[in-house]
């Protein structure tokens, strides 16, 4: 039976894994190579790896480490962070990633999406959109690691990104990140209805039922989560986990 993809989202910072809450206060959760190996053995559908400081620090993707991470994973892998040239994409794909996620560069140079998509094919180009609510409850695209609300409407931006050839959208709610209170369902719905390409929902997942709602109510094609797969219990103890196939099948019945 076909079921929607469930994708752990791992954040890299200073070559270690961290987890944030609302994009703030990164907590160290371990070594990416080991985490990816464990996720691989848990047979997750896909993995997304985001280097959250690469763009801000004007750094190139850390290819040596990425290549070692890749050798632990048999599932499709997507990398994001500091991707700003076609050469970056080419080298990331060549170490074994299937997809590359573009965020910052796309916002300031939308033509880059078109160039990337026509060079490497839309199936390998994911555009990542961080969305924040302002004081009045209006959504806007957030730049600079989610800290800066830009004057950019997420729905219009999603449509432009699609027009330029993105193969997939990764929509992350800054306000929900790390909270475990559930996705921003209306945000996902707004975007999913406005585009034809797959939308991956991220930010706020706390239980398997949140996946169900994101897919069934909001029309997401896939769901992604961070905290839910690395923390356990009230002390937020680091412990890598992933729902069993049975649980997921049940969730998407």
């Amino acid at each position, binding site marked *: 039976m076909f079921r929607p993809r469930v994708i752990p989202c791992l954040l890299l910072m*200073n*070559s*270690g894994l961290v987890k944030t809450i609302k994009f703030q206060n990164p907590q*160290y*959760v*371990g*070594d990416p*190579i*080991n985490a990816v*190996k*464990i996720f691989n*053995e*848990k047979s997750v559908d896909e993995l997304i790896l985001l280097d959250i400081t690469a763009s801000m620090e004007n750094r190139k993707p850390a290819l*040596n480490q990425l290549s*070692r991470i890749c*050798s*632990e994973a048999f599932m499709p892998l997507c990398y994001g962070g500091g991707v700003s040239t076609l050469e970056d994409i080419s080298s990331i794909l060549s170490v074994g990633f299937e997809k590359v996620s573009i965020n910052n560069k796309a916002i300031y140079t939308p033509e880059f999406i078109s160039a990337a998509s026509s060079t490497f094919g839309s199936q390998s180009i994911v555009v990542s959109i961080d969305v924040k609510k302002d004081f009045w409850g209006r959504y806007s695209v957030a730049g600079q690691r989610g800290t800066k609300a830009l004057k950019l409407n997420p729905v219009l931006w999603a449509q432009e990104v699609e027009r330029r050839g993105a193969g997939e959208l990764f929509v992350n709610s800054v306000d929900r990140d790390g909270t475990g209170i559930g996705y921003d369902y209306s945000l996902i719905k707004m975007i999913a209805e406005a585009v034809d390409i797959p939308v991956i929902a991220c930010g706020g997942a706390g239980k398997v039922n949140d996946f169900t709602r994101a897919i069934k109510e909001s029309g997401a094609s896939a769901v992604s989560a961070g905290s839910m797969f690395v923390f*356990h*219990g*009230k*002390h937020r*103890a*680091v*412990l*890598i*986990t992933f729902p069993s196939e049975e649980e997921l099948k049940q969730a998407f019945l």
Partner: protein
Amino acid sequence: MGYQQCVRCVMDTTDPEIVFDEKGQCNHCKSAERAIAKDIIADPIAKQKALQTIVEKIKKDGQGKEYDCLIGVSGGVDSTYVAYKVKELGLRPLAVHVDNGWNSELSVSNIEKALKTLNIDLYTYVLDWNEFKYLQMAFLRASVPDLEIPTDHAINSVLRSMTTKHNIKYMIFGSNINTESILPRRWSHGHQDWGYIQAINKRFGGKELKSFPHLSFWKKIYYRITNRLEIINLLDYLDYSKSGAIEILQKELNWQYYGGKHYESVYTRFVQGYILPNKFNYDKRKAHLSSLIVSGEISRDEAIQDLEKPIYPPDLLEEDLRFVNSKFGITETEFYRLMELPNKEFEDYPSDERSIKYKLIKSMYEFYKGFFKRT
């Protein structure tokens, strides 16, 4: 001295310090027998009573606190069985896990299944891999067999600090005489020796140990004086058998076995299955099986048969070797070069144990102990 193996257990001259009596029995199984006679209560009723007394004391002292005891968890048999048992005894434990970057999938899923089923709270301390990697590498470069000492030291330190944080007076361990009575000093030494760890790191490591949880010499003395912490090796109060425990854990907690002793960690598996036997000629299975012989769980013949089995399935060895090198960021050639270095031991490096400071304080301590005994 030629090769010799004990007639009672399976320890042999691969322990350079082993001593045999005229009948061919070694010092290890003899002292294990003494330990069992001394520390294990033979009478089942008295044993049950001793356990009850301790449990009642823990409950009483823990009244009004969130947790009454602390347990360490690794996903392995002993620690998971302790988790199972403390709940059965009605205690309220906090489980603590130290993640050193080498957890196997089996270890994390075992921890998850056990703690969820038993409804036990967990705290995890994650060692900073960028720092810890260099420390583990330093021990490899120092060419000593004590490769797992940094992890053991960190675990101890984290457990200690958690008891202070949560005001817990009892640490309940899975260490036990029945399955762990024998371990030659030369095969691993210095677990509590921060001076040793620092010395190795200074000489062979690449990074300052900024965040590494440790128990310094003075901190240990401070704890000894101020902290009335009690360590309870719970399994010694039970009729603990490893096979029996595995059966219960599989049935009750859906727990899964992972192969060898302490093989729940990839690095431990690699150290015990490859580095120690190949570089130092130390096969820890001998010590472990010998403990089981003395406690009567297996016969000497069974142990000998067990030792004939390959210590490492070849496919797994290949996979682990590649993984270890990838984690350390070294090539296979570099790794084999480290294996070729002349072997060293604890005594070749500075340590607290060998420092004048330690000897002085130890003799002062002995003096005071003697003094108070007299008065």
